[in-house]
């Protein structure tokens, strides 16, 4: 395992859900979350929703896509950005947005299992593209995953140029 540390499954593995709402104000927007010290993060599923209809009934008809990037391993686990509703839930089906930017409570169904592991201090990175900078304005992203503790706190031993 080297400088990323050995997993310690005897310690408590705890679920950790990560949520952010992104404002779609540039051609590509970034969902970034730095994994805590001392833990690996096993990402299991992604729940994403965004509106297709506004409160006036105007249909946006957007086709947003997402890309995952594993910075620790420098890997792009897809060839091109993938439309949200092909591997996430609930997507945009039936989602409207009101004047206070609240979205319809559509049900979550089944999302594709991801099972991607991020070592500690890695960034969870997800890029959203495909909007026309007018609509939609917001996207909700939630990650279902688990924090897995590592045996040693390598970051305190100088192996990351901090000692």
């Amino acid at each position, binding site marked *: 395992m080297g400088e990323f540390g050995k997993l310690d499954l005897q310690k*408590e*593995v*705890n*679920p*950790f*859900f*990560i*949520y*952010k709402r992104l404002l779609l104000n540039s051609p590509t927007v970034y969902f970034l*979350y730095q994994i805590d010290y001392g833990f690996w993060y096993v990402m*299991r*599923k992604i*729940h994403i*929703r965004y509106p297709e209809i506004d409160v006036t009934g105007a249909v946006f008809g957007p086709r947003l896509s997402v890309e995952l990037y594993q910075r620790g391993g420098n890997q792009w686990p897809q060839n091109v950005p993938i439309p949200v509703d092909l591997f996430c839930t*609930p997507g945009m089906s039936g989602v409207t947005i*009101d004047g*206070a930017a*609240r*979205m*319809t*409570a*559509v*049900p*979550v*169904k*089944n999302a594709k299992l991801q099972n991607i592991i991020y070592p500690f201090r890695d960034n969870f990175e997800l890029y959203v593209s495909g909007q026309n900078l007018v609509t939609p304005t917001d996207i*909700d992203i*939630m990650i*279902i995953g*688990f924090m897995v503790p590592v045996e040693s706190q390598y970051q305190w031993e100088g192996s990351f140029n901090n000692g």
Partner: protein
Amino acid sequence: MIVKPFSQKIDPEKVFEIQNFQYQERLLMSDTIGAGTTRLGRVAVSNIGHFFCQKITGTFTSLAIAGDTGFDYLSGQLVDGAGNRKLYNDRIPFSLWLTPGRRRSTAGGTAGNSLFLPIEFEYLFTANSEIQLDVANTSDAANQYEICFHGIRIISDMVVRNRISNSGNGAQVRRSAYQPNRRG
């Protein structure tokens, strides 16, 4: 006696042995959140043993003064009461992590959904602790929710000792509880 309901042998004696000390259980948390307020929902794990949560399901209402609008007004952050460990990074809108999710309220609105796929949430809540949910309601009307935690109750040593001392067949229970691997 050996029962073979499917292709698997089931030994009732061993099954009952296990069920005495760990069994499926569900804990329900339900609450009503006033308009525009936050509130901490609690459910006690109780002192009979630890609770290993495996799945979460839940429903909630989407009421506003204008009626049942169907919008997502409730959001919450789950917390392990022992040590105050936050299990979400922020309050998350209920419809993103609860199935079946929104349900029709007494004010009407469109129909809700049926249970689809319980959300995976494997975590050990210790005996005597609390499962806490910090909930915010952004609506101008009160909203309700019910969340069910599905898991396994793992009876604590203290309860096991009490059961043994209260049992008419203490020797057998004691042997099965503490030397499970030595039985044929």
